[in-house]
């Protein structure tokens, strides 16, 4: 009865959502977004602060943001304040988790110990995943991905090791320090921008040539920091969740 009632209610909500959204004047049909009428056009053309006619991969130099990945240029340049906030969300969630499980000791153990196949197999791919993570956040301005996927890869590697080896234990203090330092450096980087060009988080480094490794100014630097931070934060969360129930 409750379910039927909920179903009816949700159906009504759905009908109203659909009709409400699609009856709005100017709401684009699917696939017909007018990017040229949105702020995004300037991100694609990289001409928020100066007039660019053309941006060409591997050729254009010294643009306002040198990231070949336009999404990355938004995440770490045009809207990098969001990203700082996002990092903070993860930071504070990890803090919350560790506060909740702060008194726990030891590790959760399952009934069956992982065998050598899983343990060794994981150990073999572990460095591969770690490096993959680093690769992703370092190349965030050139390829899909960036600090968050990269950091997540690092944390996945740690999670894998936890699952594969009952004796595996990260030195969580090292990770906490990494997390704190990376975060602090992110903010400091922003403050340096504030001092140099009067704008917090401004891209004060040379942005180089679009498409090359050393380009995009502070973007790769930020992504490295974000990657390290996210990686250590997620590791912290995982470690906390796997803590035992002993108090």
């Amino acid at each position, binding site marked *: 009865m409750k379910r039927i009632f909920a179903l009816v209610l949700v159906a009504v909500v759905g009908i109203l959502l659909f009709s409400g959204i699609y009856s709005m004047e100017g709401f684009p049909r699917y696939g017909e977004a007018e990017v040229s009428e949105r702020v995004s056009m300037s991100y694609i053309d990289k001409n928020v602060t100066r007039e660019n006619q053309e941006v060409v991969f591997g050729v254009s130099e010294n643009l306002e943001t040198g990231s070949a990945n336009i999404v990355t240029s938004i995440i770490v340049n045009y809207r990098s304040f969001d990203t700082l906030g996002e990092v903070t969300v993860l930071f504070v969630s990890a803090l919350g988790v560790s506060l909740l499980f702060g008194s726990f000791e030891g590790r959760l153990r*399952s*009934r*069956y110990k*992982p065998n050598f196949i*899983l343990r060794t197999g*994981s150990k073999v*791919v572990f460095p591969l*995943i770690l490096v*993959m993570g680093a*690769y*992703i956040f370092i*190349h965030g301005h050139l*390829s*899909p*991905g960036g600090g968050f*996927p990269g950091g997540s*890869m690092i944390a*996945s590697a740690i*999670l*894998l090791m936890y*699952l*594969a080896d009952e004796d595996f234990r990260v030195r969580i203090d090292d990770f906490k320090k990494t997390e704190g330092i990376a975060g602090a450096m992110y903010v400091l980087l922003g403050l340096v921008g504030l001092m140099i060009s009067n704008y917090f988080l401004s891209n004060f480094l040379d942005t180089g040539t679009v498409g090359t490794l050393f380009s995009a100014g502070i973007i790769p630097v930020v992504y490295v920091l974000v990657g390290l931070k996210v990686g250590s934060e997620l590791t912290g969360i995982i470690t906390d969740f796997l803590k035992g129930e002993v108090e």
Partner: protein
Amino acid sequence: MMNAFVFTLVGLGLFFSLLRLLTGPTPFDRVLSLDTMNIIISGSIVLIALIFNNALYLDIAIVYAVLAFLETIVFARYLEGRS
């Protein structure tokens, strides 16, 4: 033309795995079929990279493969010993 053949076969693989995913009967069977599908999907991403001539998809394929493995292990360890 060749691509069509290739994708038809890939699709068949996915389809049968999906059937197993739906029929089970145990969660392990479902995870197994999911694992298989994931491998097939990472391979398909590589194929897409070839078709779009864009190496960026290779990175995605790797990440996908990693997450697929992790998923299998997580489920396996989580389900182990539960009947």
